[in-house]
């Protein structure tokens, strides 16, 4: 073949390669020549656009002062309109992955979006599963009402609209390294984070670079630099999100993200449900977003240890128990939110120094919220014992520990009927301290209790055999660390923490770190530091920014993208557990086809690279394999 012919063939082939379906990242960087191309296309696209509001908007951009990014976005949207189908009106939408590395900023064209495509969700019964979309308007629209309708399957069964929870993603100011790390920063950047029913709960002033909390009728500046920060109490009465999604404002030429969470209850019948979300602007035609939900014919188990399907996978976060009175109106909503987001092991937040009536209330609340009651992870010694250095523990120190252990044993026996409770003492202690504390841990074990210490390498080196619960400083990809802890044979619960601590707003990062990455590395616990209850100001504290996954208010928690990422991460492990359980059943059957199918599923799981694998693809792949193994078992 002559070179020119090959070249022409290649060029024609290449023209079809660049699909917006397959690109996603934190933010897109367009080369100057492409921006210039879009600017050149503006006048052409104005001519070709027929929808009056879009045409008028595009025409308004034809002056030299219009920022290049505004023109670029408008032309790209207009090209999508030209290529796709749409109804009349100023609004278009893009279906986008709910959990993604992309920072969906108002001026960020959704490179990974599907223009005017249906929202698709596949979920098990009793699972929460998200979908997301971005709206773009060619006109300023003040009061756009978004209403999820009920979904129906072919048999006429209904997935009620009440099980579709729709929120707007608030882009607000966070520390200058927002989206990427847990360290504080003196500057601010716009970051998508909050999931709100009422977007006016936080007002963002882009002129001054400020966030304001709305408390009743007044506003409080909540993004001041640290030296000017006036502590904001999020439990102030009146500071709470709405119960239902309030009308939103769409600014012309800007993208705004929405987050839909569908909950299939245990009773929801399996099948394919269809319906729509309607976006209705005042004075303009409504825009319909089709929704398709596949409810799977199974429930997910709670996650199990990757190495032992009989051992529960512990899912907790340090400091997550709310420091509120159980009588506070935010207390139970907070606990329920935590549990609904797959935080499985939490509480009771009471110990030996807690007055008995308060302890009883907390235990009751823990059980009511549905947290696992065995094992219990959050126990602590009632006070410090011994010195903070390597000076050996004395007889009196150990007698104090002995009494505490006895009382703790009695406490857990009384409230839970067992002593499978991890008692922490110390945190990231140095090696000499770890050595000298071994007799204390022995006492806890002698009382049937478990030990718990977070720290570095030397905890393994000097006290690995004594530890039952150990958050190990490092990354969730550290399979070597996970393996050697399990090689001890103590069935210790081991998790990563610190690299990174919580704080990244990126839901995809949070999902991977608290989901399959650690699972595939062999960890059997999530116990990162920390679940911080504010502050709302990212700049209020030194060194570490607030490690917030969900923000406290007077009525409970405001969810975030990262918090949804956390839930999905744990759900990934629940799917993996389901798949392993079915694979195990198949492997122990007497049918070679089933045996092979079970082994193939496990081989596939074993082949996954937790750091690089596409989590959305893996989720669907797990579902497909679960369905296949289920079918084979019939």
């Amino acid at each position, binding site marked *: 073949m002559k070179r020119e012919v090959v070249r022409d063939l290649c060029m024609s082939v290449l023209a079809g*390669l660049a699909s917006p379906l397959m690109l996603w990242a934190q933010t897109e*960087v367009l080369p100057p020549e492409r921006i210039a191309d879009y600017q050149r296309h503006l006048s052409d696209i104005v001519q070709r656009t027929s929808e009056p509001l879009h045409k008028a908007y595009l025409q308004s951009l034809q002056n030299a002062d219009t920022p290049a990014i505004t023109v670029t976005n408008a032309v790209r949207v207009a090209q999508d309109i030209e290529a796709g189908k749409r109804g009349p009106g100023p609004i278009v939408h893009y279906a986008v992955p709910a959990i993604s590395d992309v920072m969906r900023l108002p001026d960020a064209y959704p490179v990974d979006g599907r223009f005017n495509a249906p929202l698709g969700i596949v979920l098990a019964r009793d699972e929460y599963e998200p979908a997301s979309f971005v709206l773009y308007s060619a006109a300023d629209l003040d009061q756009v009402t978004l209403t999820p309708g009920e979904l129906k399957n072919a048999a006429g069964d209904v997935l009620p609209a009440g099980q579709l929870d729709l929120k707007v993603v608030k882009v607000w100011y966070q520390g200058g390294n927002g989206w990427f790390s847990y360290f504080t920063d003196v500057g601010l950047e716009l970051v998508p984070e909050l999931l709100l029913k009422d977007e006016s709960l936080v007002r963002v002033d882009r002129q001054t670079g400020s966030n304001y909390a709305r408390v009743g009728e007044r506003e409080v500046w909540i993004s001041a630099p640290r*030296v000017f920060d006036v502590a904001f109490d999020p439990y102030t009465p009146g500071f709470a999100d709405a119960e239902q999604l309030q009308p939103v404002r769409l600014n012309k030429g800007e993208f705004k993200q929405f987050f839909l969470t569908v909950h299939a209850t245990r009773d929801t019948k399996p*099948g394919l449900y269809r319906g729509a979300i309607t976006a209705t602007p005042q004075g303009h035609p409504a825009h319909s977003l089709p929704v398709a939900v596949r409810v799977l014919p199974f429930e997910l188990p709670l996650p199990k240890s990757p190495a032992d399907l009989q051992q529960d996978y512990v899912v907790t976060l340090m400091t997550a128990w709310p420091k509120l009175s159980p009588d506070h109106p935010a207390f139970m909503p907070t606990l329920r939110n935590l549990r609904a987001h797959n935080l499985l092991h939490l509480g009771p937040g009471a110990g030996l120094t807690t007055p008995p009536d308060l302890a009883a209330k907390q235990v009751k609340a823990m059980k009511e919220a549905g947290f696992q009651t065995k094992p219990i992870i959050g126990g602590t010694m009632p006070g410090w014992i011994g010195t903070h250095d390597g000076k050996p523990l*004395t007889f009196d120190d150990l007698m104090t520990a002995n009494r505490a252990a006895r009382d703790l044993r009695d406490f857990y026996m009384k409230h839970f009927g067992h002593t499978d409770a991890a008692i922490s003492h110390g945190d990231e202690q140095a090696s000499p301290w770890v050595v000298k504390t071994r007799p204390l841990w*022995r006492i806890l074990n002698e009382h049937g209790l478990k030990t718990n210490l977070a720290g570095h390498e030397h905890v393994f080196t000097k006290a690995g055999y004594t530890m039952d619960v150990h958050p190990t400083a490092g990354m969730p990809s550290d399979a070597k660390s996970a393996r050697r802890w399990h090689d001890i044979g103590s069935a210790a619960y081991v998790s990563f923490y610190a690299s990174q601590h919580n704080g990244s707003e990126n839901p995809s990062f949070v999902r991977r770190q608290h989901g399959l990455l650690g699972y595939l590395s062999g960890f059997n616990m999530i116990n990162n530091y920390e679940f911080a209850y504010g502050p709302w100001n990212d700049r209020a504290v030194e060194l570490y920014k607030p490690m917030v996954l969900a923000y406290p208010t007077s009525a409970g928690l405001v969810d975030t993208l990262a918090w949804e990422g956390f839930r999905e991460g744990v759900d990934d492990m629940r799917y993996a557990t389901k798949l392993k359980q079915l694979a195990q059943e198949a492997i122990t059957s007497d049918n070679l086809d089933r045996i092979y199918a079970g082994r193939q599923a496990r*081989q596939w799981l074993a082949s996954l690279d937790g750091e690089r*694998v596409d989590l959305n693809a893996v989720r669907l792949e797990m579902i497909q394999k679960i369905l296949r193994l289920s079918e084979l078992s019939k």
Partner: protein
Amino acid sequence: MMIKKSKILPPAFAVVALLVASVADAQAPNQSANVQQIEALSKEADAQVAALAGKNLSDMDLSAAHATLAKALQLPGLTGPEQVNVLRKIGQLYQRADQFKEARDTFEKIKSLDVPDHLKREADRLVADVYAAEGRGQEAIELYRKHKLDLIGLYQKLGDDDARQAECMAVLNNADAPDAQRWSAFTRLPCWDWRSDDTAALRAAVEKFMPAFLEKEPNRALHLMRKFESQGIGKDPAFVRWAAPTLLKAPRLTDQDYRKIKSALLAAAASSGGDALVAEAKSLSSDERLDDEMRLWARLVVAGLGESPEPVAAAVKESVLPAAQTAAAVANAARTILSSGNEPAGRRLEAFYDQTWPRPARAEIVCKYIDDAPFDVGSWIASPLLKDKKSTASLNRPYGDNLKFLLETDSAVMGRNTSAEKDGEGTVERTDFHTACDDDGIHLFLRAHDTRAAEVARGTLGGGSFEMYFAPGAHQAYYTFLADLPKGKIDPQGFITMYENPMFRLPSLENETFRTQTQAVEGGFGLYMFLSWELFYDKLPSNGTRWQFESIRWTRNGGYSFGGSESVHNRSSFGDIVFDGLSPQQLTAIKRTIVFSAVKKYREAKRSTEPVGNWADPVLGDPAFHAAKVAPLLERLDAAVLLVKADMSDADVEKVFSEAVPLWMELPHHVAALRAAYLQDVMLAGE
């Protein structure tokens, strides 16, 4: 967990009875010698217990200590009080081991001795306290009642707040009780506990009883200070306003506490706002008992509440305080005003602060394209680029936040150079930073001067380290690099801010997208880093493009940085790498290099053993998916590969680069996305 009983002496009461009897027959003349002997034996017993430290509890045997104390009881001529002393020690040793019965029995023996009543009463208390420790509270209470002991203290031990409250009130309401006893009861009311937040009860108690107590001793008001700090400051303006007058009347109130109270009153006034704040601030601004900073703070509040900027500027100009303290006063004043709800006035002070003590301008260094950029430490040392001022910068900004900066380098704001710091022995440590780029990527070089480099190289002196961050522009994930001196190796994936996706890649030593070298050079150490364009093929810079970089050198004298980091990972204080000298031809040359890498990566990714190629496997893959989605894609990408030749035209480079390279480079990601869409379509089809 139980102590090994077998290792403990036989039931002590029998031994003690025997010993007490023998002691009773003894002579008195040895009295003072006995006191010393008892002390010595007691210390020996303590030492024997202390020597058990480090063992497991079950291996801690107290029998030696008991035997030692038993010797004390055998001393000739023990007096009654001396016997009491020994028995108390023996009983306490039992109690330390939770041997409650033995402890009680031992203390009971005291009561049969011929000793003064107060010692017998003390024995009663000891016995009762053993019951309390044993969890037999009612028996302890009965004994306390019977022997008229301090029930308040017992209830405190037992954690019975209601009973304690009642007992305290009984004492307080007893007008005949001595003042000291009533004061003791008052201060032990549960509302004073550190964990109590019952300020209503506290106020009621103070208002009812404190005036009379103060008449006898006005400094008793200071007892309120701890609660003022824990419950009032920053929490409860009403409590502050209520408690402050009482505290301020205490003659022994320290200046430090006086300041705390006054600043709390200012904060409380801010919560009321308006005239109350102005009045309180005016009062404080002329309060001679307050320090200069507090008075300036108050003066700035008054000035800041006005519209005119001049009074604020005048107050700052007239300040005799060091800049850090003046700045702190301005910040405090702004915070006070903001907490009053007057945001415009608070913002004006904030703006004044920023204007008066501005952060240093963003640091920058030019990264020029050159054909033969230095590629290791040696070539950098030999490079003329070291003398190019534009592509050279210094790590001369002290690490730390603005206030710390003002505190440590107060003179710096007046224009003094702080680029060099001296350690105790006169070593000057300067760090130069250089950068360049070429067809392959970006080359960074840090030269860490150190006149004690030889010692560092020998390992007899710490060499410090580098902490670096690199981001290819705003809104992009950043890399973190840590390197110790003199020979630290960098793990480029030691701190991950994002996992790989089609628009983000992690540097890697294995695939040589990252290279590094650290070694000794004349007068110090050189650290070289290379980052391949492969990492950034989708965001290649053009002239004027700014990427972000920061390097903090942790020296023996503290941290010094390129950008002026206020804390670690402090992205807003990173500096900029500004690209220059990139002609269209050079950019094409860069792209040409990337195209070849992309083809190599593509070929590796589509192998049958890799996830992409595996889809064709009839058992482990999904041939239907492969045929529908993967094969057509690979066919087109394979065809595009045919364009890639050593002598391909610039136009072909541009075309292939923009349209095929993203897919070649990221094939596994793209196929995974296709797979997700394919499965979702299947699962959402029908019905």
